[in-house]
């Protein structure tokens, strides 16, 4: 399979008061068309920085990002993003939030409402079409944010700990829901998380990142079949993967803890 997303030698150094801080060290990897890749790392390891660079929201200090055979260096509709914080536009209804990207492209109201309703159906919030974001719970907001990103039909979907602010139960349901929606389109997804189970459950492939300065430390394939079900979390393969990743991430978490 050809690489849909390629990250080549990307690094990021932030200018700081006393001395420059290296957030990300020389990082290269790729994701194939239709692949679900997760990046697992301790907090503050620069995984969000990596995602923001791919989205074009941050400039890399070196290296380049490729979508297919096209280099990218600024934000664009080809790379949709779901943030950890709630970023729905509060003055727009749920339906208009989902249709926002389509509106920017100049599609007509019936057209974008039709697409928005399709995704609203998928995320199970059809009856909230006319609600405002302030009326939704955290889990609902993130579902709408996912729908908003998908309705724009990006080539790559970037997800920056989208369920990080949700409670454990909601979080598990959201993982299943995201996979259900994903099964339909099989978009290339890059999903950043610090949660080991989440990283395994969602992914075809997991990259483990080191503590700051961030660097890819290991690459692990997840041989679980698709579609995934939550029962798989109790299978021996899952437990084995979890053990391996726990060991890897624990060392890094300790390093991160002691570095501060």
């Amino acid at each position: 399979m050809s690489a849909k997303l390629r990250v080549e030698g990307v690094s990021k150094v932030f200018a700081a008061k006393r001395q420059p801080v290296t957030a990300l060290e020389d990082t290269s990897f790729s994701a194939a068309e239709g692949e679900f890749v997760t990046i697992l790392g301790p907090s503050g390891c620069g995984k969000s920085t990596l995602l923001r660079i791919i989205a074009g929201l941050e400039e890399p200090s070196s290296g380049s990002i490729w979508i297919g055979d096209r280099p990218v260096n600024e934000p664009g509709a080809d790379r949709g993003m779901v943030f950890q914080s709630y970023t729905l536009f509060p003055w727009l209804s749920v339906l208009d939030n989902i249709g926002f990207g389509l509106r920017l492209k100049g599609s007509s109201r019936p057209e974008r409402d039709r697409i928005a309703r399709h995704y609203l159906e998928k995320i199970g919030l059809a009856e909230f079409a006319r609600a405002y974001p302030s009326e939704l719970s955290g889990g609902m907001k993130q579902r709408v944010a996912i729908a908003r990103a998908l309705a724009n039909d990006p080539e790559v979907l970037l997800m920056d700990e989208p369920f990080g602010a949700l409670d454990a139960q909601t979080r598990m349901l959201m993982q299943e829901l995201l996979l259900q929606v994903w099964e339909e389109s099989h978009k290339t997804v890059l999903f950043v998380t610090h949660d080991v189970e989440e990283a395994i459950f969602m992914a075809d492939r997991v990259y483990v990142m080191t503590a700051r300065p961030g660097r890819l430390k290991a690459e692990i394939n997840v041989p679980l079949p698709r579609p995934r079900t939550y029962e798989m979390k109790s299978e021996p393969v899952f437990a084995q993967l979890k053990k391996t990743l726990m060991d890897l991430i624990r060392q890094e978490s300790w390093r991160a803890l002691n570095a501060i």
Partner: protein
Amino acid sequence: MSMQISRPARRSGGFRKLWRPKEKIPQALAVVLGSSAFALVLLAWSVLTYGGFVPPLFLPSPTEVIVSGYRAFTQFGLWNDIAASVYRVSAGWFLAALLGVPLGILMGSLRVVAAFIEPLIGFIRYMPASAFIPLLILWVGIDDSEKIAVIFIGTFFQLVIMIADVAKNVPKDLLESSYTLGARPGQVLWRILLPASLPGIVDTLRITLGWAWTYLVVAELVAAASGLGHMIMDAQRYLRTANIIVGIVIIGLLGMVLDLFFKMLHRGLFPWMSREGKG
């Protein structure tokens, strides 16, 4: 095995609850409290005047003020004064808003604009508008445009700074997520910054309109033949104390009505804000 069952905590008394910071109070109580403040002032005023503690030259009684007010409307054309003042305040404030809102939004969202214009505005806004009156008389004369200019100067610079702050406070997250949905900088300005700032803009307009009124009397100090400010100054000259109070009360009433109008506008325009019960 014994188990202790703790009694549910007694509900704290209604009165004590009122003194808890940020605690909500019943709407009816709010109305009663608000009206009683007015009533208290009226009561104190009545005691002082009807009781003969203060000579009428310093403080006329409520009755005298009402009579004067009535006469001002029926015999001295107070309506014309009100109309003249409303016109001047609205014109000065409207011009300030017309120029200040776009400039403020640009200043709050584009660093180049802020770097260019913020120091200058920060410098001018501390200059008292009244100090410009002699200059303005030289420049634009003594007719209505001079009064409008005073109100404009008093309002514009503050307004720009406040609008810039509103635009500056739009969360960067919203801008970034719109970029990842394909927005170009122009679209971000129009589709994100403007709607996100709108509630703050309406609030700022409400506050600055109040300030515009406070410049009215200063503006009408010089060479005015009409207006509430002129009427107050005139009353002072002839020691018609009751008329001074009539003028002041009318300015207060006009301000209150406008304030109410803006609050209703805010509620009507931004239904997406109120539902959570917080600003």
